[in-house]
């Protein structure tokens, strides 16, 4: 593209030399303009490209931020709609609480703030829950203590009525009322003790058989329970009522979860460092999840939330667990019974047992010592030995432990009226005892007079 063609209408001057110079100059102007224009165009293009790049980068960042914003919105929505309700629900069941949606967000300040919110919420929910639990327990405890007191009072009057009325028809009705009242009292007592109350009544140390039968008297199907015991030991006074209550809950479970025509077998077995009370039922048994949950409750280690016991509430295992933890016995239900149902074992350590049996007030003439009964049939022997062998009229009385006495005094002349001849062994023992005591006291006093210089 030449300058002529660019400016074709400009006329050339007539003088050539001058015009040649002129021509040369006029030829340079469009070139300069051209270069200027080229530079300007170049600059504009590069600016445009740069601008385009900046815009593209900005657009990218905008999209990124929009996505981030959306993710955060989604996260907050997830928090408010899913996670926080789940945290609230977790109080009622053990459903897992879902985590945050976007794992990348968790590392950012935003994610940490969200986590802090969740923690604060959890803390507040926990505090509210424990406060509600405490107040529910306090209310329940007070209410149940009142009911328990009424049940006890009613039991006393029922006992009085049973003593007063000799009519079998009246007695039958009274027994029914008594039975219902005992179940009522047990329920109230169990709930009160779960809520941290004391047993509410103190019992004397009682034989294991009576403790189990006491538990039997507090359940609905008491006729289906059979007790087998070869153990002759007492439960210490402070543990009687808790053990009765725990065994009653086990028996109630066993009877409730088996067919009405089956029996619930209770065995009392001595162990090296305690006694086991074994309750077998022929019921439906428990699956693995139920067994695990029962074991958790029976351990007594977890703090039982009474709002979580279901509807209607299942107090049984929770009560047993609380009692076991407080009084130091243990209960397990994770074995299958040979009868097909559940075998529950309550283990009483020696600390809760009296191995030495107190047989009532000491019998005069035997020095207060009752020999341990070797077999179940023989506890009467000590009474027979203590009894005079003749009546007031001088007539002989039958004695059980004749072999022992005959060996000593020759049998036939034993029924003489003198009790000294009848119990020579006991008499001799008491005389020897008296002699020994006399000697000891004599020596003690003489030592005292020697040892004290002022006398």
């Amino acid at each position, binding site marked *: 593209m030449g300058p002529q063609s660019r400016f074709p209408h400009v006329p050339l001057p007539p003088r050539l030399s001058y015009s040649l110079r002129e021509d040369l100059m006029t030829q340079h102007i469009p070139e300069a303009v051209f270069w200027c224009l080229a530079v300007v165009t170049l600059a504009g293009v590069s600016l445009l490209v740069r601008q385009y790049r900046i815009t593209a980068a900005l657009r990218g960042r905008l999209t990124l931020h929009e996505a981030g914003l959306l993710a955060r919105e989604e996260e907050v929505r997830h928090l408010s709609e899913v996670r926080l309700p789940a945290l609230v629900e977790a109080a009622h069941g053990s459903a897992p609480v879902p985590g945050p949606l976007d794992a990348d967000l968790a590392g950012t300040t935003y994610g940490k703030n969200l986590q802090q919110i969740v923690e604060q919420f959890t803390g507040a929910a926990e505090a509210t829950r424990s406060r509600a639990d405490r107040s529910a327990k306090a209310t329940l405890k007070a209410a149940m203590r009142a009911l328990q007191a009424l049940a006890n009072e009613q*039991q006393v009057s029922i*006992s009085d009525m*049973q*003593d007063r*009325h*000799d*009519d*079998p*028809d009246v*007695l*039958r009705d*009274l*027994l*029914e009322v*008594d*039975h219902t009242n*005992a179940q009522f009292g047990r329920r109230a007592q169990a709930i009160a003790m779960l809520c941290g109350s004391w047993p509410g009544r103190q*019992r*004397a*140390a*009682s*034989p294991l*058989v*009576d*403790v189990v*039968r*006491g538990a*039997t*008297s507090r359940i609905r199907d*008491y*006729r289906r329970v059979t007790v087998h015991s070869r153990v002759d030991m007492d439960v210490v006074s402070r543990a*009687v009522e808790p053990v*009765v209550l725990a065994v009653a809950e086990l028996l109630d479970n066993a009877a409730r979860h088996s067919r009405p025509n089956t029996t619930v077998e209770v065995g009392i077995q001595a162990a090296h460092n305690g006694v086991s009370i074994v309750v077998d039922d022929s019921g439906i048994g428990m699956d693995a999840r139920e067994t695990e949950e029962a074991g958790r409750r029976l351990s007594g280690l977890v703090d039982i939330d009474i709002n979580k016991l279901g509807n209607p509430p299942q107090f049984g295992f929770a009560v047993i667990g609380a009692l076991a933890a407080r009084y130091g016995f243990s209960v397990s239900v994770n074995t299958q019974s040979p009868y097909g149902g559940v075998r529950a074992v309550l283990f009483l350590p020696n600390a809760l047992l009296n191995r030495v049996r*107190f*047989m*009532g*007030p000491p*019998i005069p003439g035997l020095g207060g010592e009752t020999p341990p009964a070797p077999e*179940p*049939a023989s*506890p*009467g022997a000590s*009474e*027979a030995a*203590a*009894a*005079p062998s003749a*009546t007031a009229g001088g007539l002989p*009385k*039958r*004695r*059980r432990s004749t072999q022992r006495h005959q060996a000593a005094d020759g049998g036939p002349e034993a029924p003489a009226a003198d009790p000294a001849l009848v119990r020579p062994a006991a008499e001799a023992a008491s005389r020897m005892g008296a002699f020994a005591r006399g000697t000891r006291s004599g020596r003690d006093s003489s030592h005292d007079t020697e040892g004290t210089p002022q006398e």
Partner: protein
Amino acid sequence: MTPPRPRHDRGLVRPYVVTEGRAHPTRNTLDLVALVTAVPDRPLNGLSPEKRRAIELCRPGALSVAEMAGHLALPMSVTKVLLSDLVDSGHVHVRPPVPKAQLADARLLQEVLDGLRSRF
């Protein structure tokens, strides 16, 4: 003789468990002052603790039903149920009290006397 105080706590084992829910004795011949004696050498296996205690109580000699109830710390009617069971199973004998001599009705005698007087 004073038999050992029953160690069991009253109220722990309720009477319906002792009688297995029955209120009616199998025999109604038991009187308060009827005397109970144990039949010697009967096995005590399978008896409830109350029944064993009852047999042990009357082993040394006869004991009245009322005394038995007192020593067992059980209501009278419950004791009767227990004792009738023991009589049925052959563990104890119950000797009914000697009945009082039947005296004629005084009113009847008076009427007879009045009649005789009015007649003669």
